[in-house]
């Protein structure tokens, strides 16, 4: 019995690890979208984060530089998006799509020389506790610091948006940039900051993939996780806590269906692979069906270009 319990603990630990990139990217995008900016470039920013983190790790042999560098590169690529949409007033959707395509291409180009290089071991915390406590050990301990950060992030984000002045200003800008501007808030500055923050979080999400989750560089290694993160934000109706729940469900069913495939259940593989997507959407739609809350949480100006009257 204790073995079974321990196995479940390990399974839960694996599920948590697989949901980290989604939580990071979605939490970042959530802040961006709350300010009224729709950045569809999540996938592109993530993959740029993944390759630059991995490349820096190989070149500098220093994981700290690699992690910080991946966030910086995510931030820089999101700055391009910011310049285009906020200063040159281009369409958010088209620019975001272009950013994703650019990111995937760029990462493949940089990554050419890094294919096949083994990754470096990322330090895990409390490894001895993981092994000494059954069930709770593998659930709570033996993870990287980034995982702990990721699981705290939705709560921090929630607090930040609801309780702090800056959070209030971001929500106000997302609600009505014109009103905010008339109140003397620098809308462009707020939106730029949110875009850059989102970029940095996506970069970090990418680095988690290439440095910790599967420590190597493979072309296209984000595998659509950026799009899932985007969908999570929307289906979680811009609530950070629901993003966490959605990411866990997605990660959970992804892992479970792999086990089910391995066991050889008589369910078509295609259906099993589709299961995480379907279940996540169903669950999030069900827990978010309060139309009043949706109205209150949805950034009214999402995707709208703002320019100031002169």
């Amino acid at each position, binding site marked *: 019995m204790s073995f079974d319990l321990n196995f479940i603990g390990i399974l839960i630990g694996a599920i948590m690890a697989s949901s980290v990139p989604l939580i990071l990217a979605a939490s970042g995008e959530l802040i961006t979208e709350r300010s009224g900016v729709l950045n569809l470039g999540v996938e592109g920013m993530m993959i740029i984060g993944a390759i630059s983190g991995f490349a820096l790790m190989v070149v500098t042999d220093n994981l700290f530089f690699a992690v910080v560098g991946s966030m910086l590169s995510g931030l820089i690529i999101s700055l391009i998006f910011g310049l285009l949409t906020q200063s040159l007033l281009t369409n958010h959707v088209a620019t975001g799509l272009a950013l994703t395509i650019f990111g995937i291409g760029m990462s493949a180009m940089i990554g050419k020389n890094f294919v096949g290089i083994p990754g470096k071991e990322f330090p895990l915390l409390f490894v001895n506790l993981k092994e000494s406590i059954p069930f709770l050990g593998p659930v709570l301990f033996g993870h990287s610091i980034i995982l702990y950060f990721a699981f705290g992030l939705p709560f921090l984000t929630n607090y930040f948006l609801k309780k702090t*002045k800056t959070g*209030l*200003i971001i*929500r*106000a800008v997302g*609600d*009505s940039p*014109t*009103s*905010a*501007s*008339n*109140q*003397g*808030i620098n809308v462009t500055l707020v939106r730029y900051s949110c875009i850059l923050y989102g970029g940095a979080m996506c970069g970090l999400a990418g680095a988690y993939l290439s440095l910790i989750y599967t420590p190597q560089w493979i072309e296209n290694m984000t595998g659509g996780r950026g799009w899932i993160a985007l969908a999570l934000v929307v289906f979680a109706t811009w609530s950070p806590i629901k993003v966490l729940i959605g990411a866990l469900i997605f990660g959970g069913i992804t892992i479970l269906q792999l086990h089910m495939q391995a066991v050889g259940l008589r369910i078509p593989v295609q259906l099993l692979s589709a299961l995480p997507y379907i279940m996540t959407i169903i669950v999030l739609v069900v827990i978010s069906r309060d139309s009043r809350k949706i*109205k*209150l*949480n*949805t950034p*009214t100006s999402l995707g709208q270009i703002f320019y100031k*009257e*002169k």
Partner: protein
Amino acid sequence: MNTKLKVSEISKIYPGCIANDKVSLEFGSGKIYALLGENGAGKSTLVKILSGVVKPDEGQVFLNDESIKLNSPLDAKKNNIGMVFQHFNLFETLSVFENLSIDSDKKDEELKTLVNDILKKYNFKIDLDIPVLNLSAGQKQKVEIIRCLIRNPKVLIMDEPTSVLTEQETDDLFISLKQFSKDGILIIYITHKLKEVLSLCDEVAVMRKGKVVSVSNTIDEKIESLANKMVGENLNTIKKKINNFKNSEEILKISNLNFKSDDPYETNLNNLNLSLKKGECLGIAGISGNGQNELFQILSGEIITEGTSIMFRNKEIGKLNPRERREYLMAFSPEDRISQAAVPELKIYENVALNNFKSSNFFEKGLVNEKKIKEHSKKILSNFSVNTDNVELKSQFLSGGNLQKLIIGRELITSPELLVCFNPTWGLDVGAINYIHETLVQINEQGKSSILISTDNDELLKLSDRICVIYKGKLSKIMNADTVSAEKLGILMGGGSID
């Protein structure tokens, strides 16, 4: 603490339009000042300059004889100039308190006491914790006002504050404004409503085409004198000939109209009966929300009700949809110009094309006949004196008056036998109202009929041949207009009865 505000030689030029042309005005605290003018006269530009939203090309603003720079809304706030915009600057999804705290440097508890003091002092009743989208227009305006009061304003500017308010809310607002004025706040009140100027303000400055044309004490003014200054010409007084329709042909007969709605916010209609003669105007009065919307929609075919008989030109049309009714020469001008009558994002000619008839050949083999539509639109623009000849202009850039002229023009250019209009002059300025009224009288003179559903009693008494009142979904007795007074209407509108 006396406040003096002076604007000196302010000019602001937009491409193709001089919004402010060397505007100079002086204001002092303790008084309420009206800034009066038609839509597009330059009032809003001037107040946007005073609130730092727009920068003037030339000119200066002086507060207590000191020149102040208003480069951003923050500058206006720093100089204690408060502004309540016509379109609210609130964050709908945030709570009332969050809306107030967003630009306040005070701590939450401190702010809460201050706000509660203000609520108590001016007898405002607003729940601070609910989101703004759940408030009525009047309450939203109060939130805007409180937001200004928090900052101890020396100057409070109100931009067309009553355009979204009910009569009761308007009365409340006036009481508050007088109280603010007594408390030493200088109030500048922007409006195009003449009655409000006379009942509320001490001094009035009239603007026309970007210039100040007159400054005077309101005691010396009358509605007519202000109207003429505002429009810049002597308005024709509209005189309707009262006709006898006894021998005229009956064009419309509605019997046993009943409507029961599933929506709790709609009004049910109960056994409505009415008839209309050729060339007659039937006025339907009432306080809004008593079934006017539903009646209009049933007349226009947006709602089809079972078992109702609508005979129009000897044909049963109760089952026809709006388009089929239009083909049969009915025309409709709904209350909400922006969302019901026109699509603001579309160009003028595209909006005209929306009202297409089989006979008009706007579309051929599934393709748009742009040339034909544009010619047709140009004809509407010139026949109905819309203030542009550019059919490519997006409709949202037309002022309310011009948009209404376009809509009425679009409806009338096909020579319908019956025009149903709902609050056709709502929110318009005097010049445009006059034009619409003239047009409505004209169609009756040409032997066409009209139904005028309106909440404006002056308008109804001026234009109708017969009048009735709708109250809680029921129609009163239909009376000849010359036997009805505004008082009588008032009693019926409140649910009373007269004999």
